[in-house]
Structure formats: structure tokens, C-alpha cells
């Protein structure tokens, strides 16, 4: 019996980690190309509402996921058009994108509040009652596996492929990359688009897998956590995985503590724990600047061409 409970805790953990892992991984690639897109939360909400609307009207969760990725991509393209095409400030534009995403998702989600859909089920549906531990390996939904595969793929892409090398070069020194002959803006736009698509997927994980119903501001600030995790991970996909699952553990602890009826701490304090943990971890990271700060892409957030 305890093993069933333990397994279910671990399943919750993976489910809590997956959306921020997806969004964080996208942002990591974006930032590696030197673009600081603070609009992750907004892109996640765009993905969440689009995914839900499409899944609700078509009845297909898969179609919803695809639509969510496209919505995130489009939101990121607005950002790319403004910052890369028109040279607007990346920080201000990113914040605006978040506000835009919140507004748009509220507007288009208004008609769906309270409605439910068939949630995204496990990829390999089976009865795990006899072997509860097998559920840990085979019982997840497709996005959990996808996110893990993407960690591996992004890691290999950045470290082992020529395209990844060029992407890092653009984030490291855009002027030099341009001088050598690489198309800085096109590469940055592509990285931003990838980041947007993954943020859209991460957002849709909330509306299609975690809580299969629409509610306003469903992502509840997880986009910001994803942004912080990229710094925590020192721009390394492997460490991002670790960070996302650590965060998942804290979030699960919060849920379990509530469920267990712990009442000697205010529930608000419990709800704070994931965010507090983020702040504590980031502070610790910046204390050890030798590992944290040095790995940041040197051109992060700097416009190209320089004004």
C-alpha cells in the first residue's frame, strides 16, 4: 500500500516538473542564442488557452498540444519581430509579452471557464495494480517522456552539433558571429521560436494534463520559475532537469502537506514554498558566481546590431 502512495507521489512530482522543464528548456535555447525573453509566462498562457480551446472543440488532446505549440511560437514571433526586427528593448518587450499573454488568455478563455475535457492520459495505458513500481517507468503521459527526450536532444545539439555551436556563438559574441558570416538575427529568431513553442507546450500541460479544465491565469507564475531555473541550471540542460524535478519535489511536498492536513503552518506559507525555494536557490547560485555567472552567454539580452 505504501508503495502505491510513494509511486503516486513520484508521479505528481514528475507532473509538476514537466511544464517548467519544457518552458525552461525552450528559454535555455533562446538565451543561449543571446535573447532574453521574459515573456515565458505569457507564452505559456497563450499555449494553455489555445490548447484547451482546440482540444475542447475538436475532442483531440493531441491536436490541442500541436495548437498550443503553434500559439507559443506565434507569441514568440511577436517578440522576435519587436526585439530583433525593430530593435526594441528585450526586457521591456518580454514583460509586455507576459502581460499580453495574461490578457489574451483571459479574453479567449472567458467562454471556457469551468468547462472540462478528457485529460491527456498515460502513453502506455495499463493496469499497474500488480506492479505499482512499473507505473513509475511506463505510467507517464507523452509530454513527460517528450520533455526528457528533449533534454537529451538539446544537450547533444548544443554540445555536439555544428548548428548548436553556431547558436552558442551568436549568444556569445554576435558581432564576431556576424563578421564570420553567420545570420545572427535569423538564428536568434529561430531560437526564440523554439523557446516559444516549448513554452506553449508547457502551458498546455496545465490545461490539458494537470487540470483538464480552464481557469484564469492557470499557470500561476510557473513561467517565472522556468526563467529562474535557467539561471539555476547555469544554462546547462542536465542541470535544468535536476532543477525542474527539485522544484517538482517542493511543489509535491506542498500538495502532500495540505492533503495530510498539516495545520500548524498556514496554507499560504505552504503555497509559498516553491517560490521561496526558487529565491533561496538563486541566491545560493549567485553567491557561487564562479559556477553561476561565468556560464551566462556573453551577449545575453544585448541587441544586435548594437545601437
Amino acid at each position, binding site marked *: 500500500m505504501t508503495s502505491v502512495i510513494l509511486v503516486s507521489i513520484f508521479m505528481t512530482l514528475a507532473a509538476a516538473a514537466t511544464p517548467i522543464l519544457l518552458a525552461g528548456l525552450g528559454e535555455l535555447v533562446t538565451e543561449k542564442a543571446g535573447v532574453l525573453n521574459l515573456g515565458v509566462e505569457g507564452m505559456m498562457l497563450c499555449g494553455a488557452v489555445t490548447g484547451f480551446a482546440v482540444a475542447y472543440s475538436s475532442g483531440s488532446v493531441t491536436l490541442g498540444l500541436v495548437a498550443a505549440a503553434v500559439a507559443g511560437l506565434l507569441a514568440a514571433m511577436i517578440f522576435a519581430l519587436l526585439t530583433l526586427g525593430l530593435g526594441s528593448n528585450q526586457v521591456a518587450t518580454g514583460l509586455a509579452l507576459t502581460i499580453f499573454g495574461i490578457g489574451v488568455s483571459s479574453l479567449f478563455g472567458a467562454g471556457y471557464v469551468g468547462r472540462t475535457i478528457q485529460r491527456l492520459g498515460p502513453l502506455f495505458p495499463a493496469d499497474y495494480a500488480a506492479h505499482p513500481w512499473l507505473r513509475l517507468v511506463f505510467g507517464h503521459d507523452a509530454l513527460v517522456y517528450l520533455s526528457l527526450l528533449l533534454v537529451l536532444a538539446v544537450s547533444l545539439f548544443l554540445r555536439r552539433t*555544428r548548428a548548436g*555551436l*553556431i547558436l*552558442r*556563438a551568436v549568444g*556569445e*559574441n554576435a*558581432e*564576431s*558571429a556576424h*563578421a*564570420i*558570416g*553567420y545570420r545572427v538575427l535569423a538564428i536568434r529568431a529561430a531560437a526564440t521560436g523554439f523557446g516559444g513553442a516549448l513554452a506553449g507546450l508547457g502551458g498546455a500541460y496545465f490545461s490539458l494534463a494537470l487540470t483538464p479544465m480552464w481557469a484564469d491565469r492557470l499557470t500561476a507564475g510557473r513561467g517565472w520559475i522556468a526563467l529562474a531555473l535557467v539561471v539555476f541550471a547555469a544554462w546547462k540542460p542536465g542541470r535544468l532537469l535536476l532543477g525542474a524535478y527539485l522544484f517538482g519535489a517542493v511543489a509535491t511536498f506542498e500538495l502532500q502537506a495540505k492533503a495530510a492536513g498539516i495545520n500548524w503552518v498556514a496554507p499560504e506559507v505552504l503555497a509559498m514554498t516553491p517560490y521561496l525555494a526558487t529565491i533561496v536557490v538563486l541566491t545560493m547560485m549567485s553567491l557561487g558566481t564562479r559556477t553561476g555567472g*561565468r*556560464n551566462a*552567454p*556573453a551577449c545575453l539580452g544585448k541587441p544586435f546590431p548594437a545601437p
Partner: protein
Amino acid sequence: MTQPPDETASLRLALAHVSKSFPGVKANQDISFGVRPGEIHALLGENGAGKSTLVKIIYGVQRADEGEIRWDGHPVEIPSPKAARKLGIGMVFQHFSLFDGMTVLENIALGLDEKVPAEELKRRIKAILDSYSLPLDPDREVHTLSVGERQRIEIVRCLLQKPKLLIMDEPTSVLTPQEVERLFDTLRQIAAEGCSILYISHKLHEIKALCSAATILRAGRVVATCDPRTESTRRMAELMIGAELKSIERPAGTGEARRARLVVSGLNMPGEPPFGTDLKTIGFTAYAGEILGIAGVAGNGQAELLLALSGERRTASNDAVKLDGQALGHADAGRRRAAGLACVPEERNGHAAVPDFSLADNVVLTARHRLPLAPSGLIRQGAVDAYAREVIQRFDVRTTGPAALAGALSGGNLQKFIMGREIGQNPEVLVVEQPTWGVDAGAAAAIRQALVDLAARGSAIVVISQDLDELLELADRLCVINEGRLSEARPVAGLKLEEIGLLMGGVHGEAVAADHAHA
């Protein structure tokens, strides 16, 4: 200046009436010249003469407004560096296009258009490093390398592409005489194999030794073409600056007895991990009225020594650094400046100056200790602007005024400004690293003259440089730093170039290269 048509056909590269303007500046006007196959062709000119713009046009970084480029007799468009490399043009930039956070190997891979597996590339790089005896570790990250080592990356990157025209922008500034000779042998060999070389340098004797043709630019126009083997260096320099060249004048000594001003003794300091050089029991004395030269190949502790003297890193013993008897080893950079110990580091942008600050603001940062620019904490903008203007005028800094951003100045111009800013404060002791790196002949002469004049007023000057010619011209005594150890200072008069070269690690360098070859 137009080449007759029959001759143009046999040229590897021919430019005809090339012009390029930027808002407010005509960088190149009606430039025509040609480079034959296998020719080492010099491009001479002061800062701002338009050399950089011209080679950028040839390398496809910028496009000409007018004019024609012919490659092997055919008119070509060179819209991008990639197109240039496809034609067979390689370039070693003066400002390196390197990626600090990446390894040497990754940097080189980025500059190649063909896809080469990492192991294969490493093998080819090793082969080039060995054949030209260039010490360089392909797996090190660039931010840990010295300027000299960074330049080697660029050279290797070009050589890997087997170019038909190699553009070298001031390539020898940081090499020892032995290395320069080796590089020249290499370049001559490359040229003998049929590759043309466009060689940009302000070191005229190098051009005399290496090049068989020279095009001289001034203010964006071709003012002369000549054969440097027969033309005198003085004449070329005068053509270049458009005026008579002044030799360094050594004012008569003040006549006072040798007074020790900066005394460094028993200076030990561990290098910054992972690749810094440890300073090992460094000791020297700089006397009033003299210029002490410190020679050495990049990465042998020069950067660490400068940090220890400037106060950016403090010494373990307070007595390790003494100015006029006052122990300053524990003092921070500001206190040392106030006491009269001024330092100019090698890196201009980001170390000697804040690129995003105006020239006036950059003045405040170092000059406020010695000059009444901000006596009560409030900046006196009038005084600051006046001082900045004075520096700009005295050192002929080409800029729009004190409000110009430091980062907007060309390297040579910024160096002139920084040197002027420090010299104008009349420091008791001035420590400079690479005072004329990348600065053209006329401006370099002006900077050197200013250093000599400052010494004549009784200051002690320490010049850390990898440019031996400069040290031999400037310094009264010379010592060599090698692997964090400083040799004893010897009077420059009577020193032979080869001797210093050996002290600088020429022999050691060869031994290392030989080890690689056997490994």
C-alpha cells in the same frame, strides 16, 4: 592609378575606383590597386586612413558604394565573408572575432565553412601548430588566453582554409623576434606556394623585410605605391602621415642622483585559477627619470604583475610594493593612484576604460584622485570636460569630443586617449602594458615621446610590452618576465636582440613544440 587592362588580367586581386562612405565620413575614395599571385603586398596607413574599411570590403564584411573588384581577372561581388572565403580569401583580424566562452577548437570550427568532425579538426590543427611551432592548446577556453595566444587562433583558423589571398591585419604586434622570423618564413613559404598576402602593419622595417609591394593610404585615398625593399622606412612613414616624422628627443637628464621611486621586492602571488601564472619572488626598482622595460611573451605573468602593481590584487606583504618608501602592498587601487602610482592595463575596453561611458566620465574614473575633478564628491563637469578636451587635443585623439563614448573610438584612438589621461596627471610612477598596441606609427611616436618627457620630469616609468623594438627604443634598462619570474634588469645599451629573445623563452618555446612533435 588604374592598372592597364593587360596587367589586370594577371592579378589575383584588383580594385578599381572603390569608394565607401559612412554618414559624415568618406572612408575610402577612388581606391585602385592590385595584388599579384604569390605577392606579399603591404597596405600602409595611419589609424582612420581607411585600411580597415578597405579590407572589410575585400573580405565581404562591408560593401563598397562604388567601384569594382576583380578576382583572377573576373569582376566579382563579395556580399559576405562566406563568399570571400569561397573565393579563397582568408583574414586575420586586428580585433579578433573570437568567442570568449568557447574553446580554441570550437572557435576554429566556427570559422570553417566545411563541416569537419571534431577529432579530424583537432588533428589538422595540431599538424599546423606543429609545422609552424605555435604553442596553443585546442581545448582551452579563449577567455583564459593572452592576446598573443588569441592571435594564434586566428592565424591557424586561416591557414586551415588553404587560402589564395591571406589578409593579415597587424599580425606581429605580440610576437617575439624569433616568432616573427618564424611567421615571416611561414608567410614567405605560403607566398612561394602561390598564395597572395595583403599585409597591414605600421612596423615599416617588417614591411621592408617581408613585402615586395606597398600601397600607402592617407585619409581614405591612395597616396603612393612603392617597392618597400628599395624605399626608405622614413620616406614611407612620411608618406603615410603626410608630414615629417619626428624622432624621439631625449631631453638632458635632470642631473639628480638615481633616486629609487618604485621598489618591488619579494612579490609572490598565485595566478587566478585555472590558467593564471604565479608570480614568483618578483623584485625590481624603477628610478626617477628612467624607463624600465619589461619584455616577455604574452601569458608569462604580465597581466598578474600589472594587477599586483595597480592594486586590483593586493600583495600578501605590505612592503612588497613601495612608492618613495611608502608601503602600498595593502592599499587599494584608489589609494595607490592618490599616492601617484598609475597603471594602464593592456585591455582598453572594459579594463582601462568603460566602453559605454563617455570620455569625460572615463576621465573622472581615474583622474579624480590626482586632479580636483570631484573635490567634495560632486563632479565638476566643467573641469572634467576641459581636461578631456586637453587630452584629446594634446594626443590628437580623433573623436567628436568629451561626450563621445569610449567604446565608439577605434582601438588606437582610445589608447591615445587613455595614455594621455594618465600622463596628464603627472604620476610619480606610471606602469603601462602595451602602450602602443595597434596604434599607428605617428601616434606611437607621440605616445613614446610623451613617456620620455614624463620620465625627464622625474617620474619613473615601467613599460610592460611584447614589442621588443619599442622597448629597445624607449627603455633605459630592460628585464624579461618568463613563467612568472623576472630577470635582472640590464642597461639597454649593448644588449643584443637575440639575447633578449632567448631570455623571452624562444628556446623554451621550441622545446615545447619539439615535445609536441614527439608526443
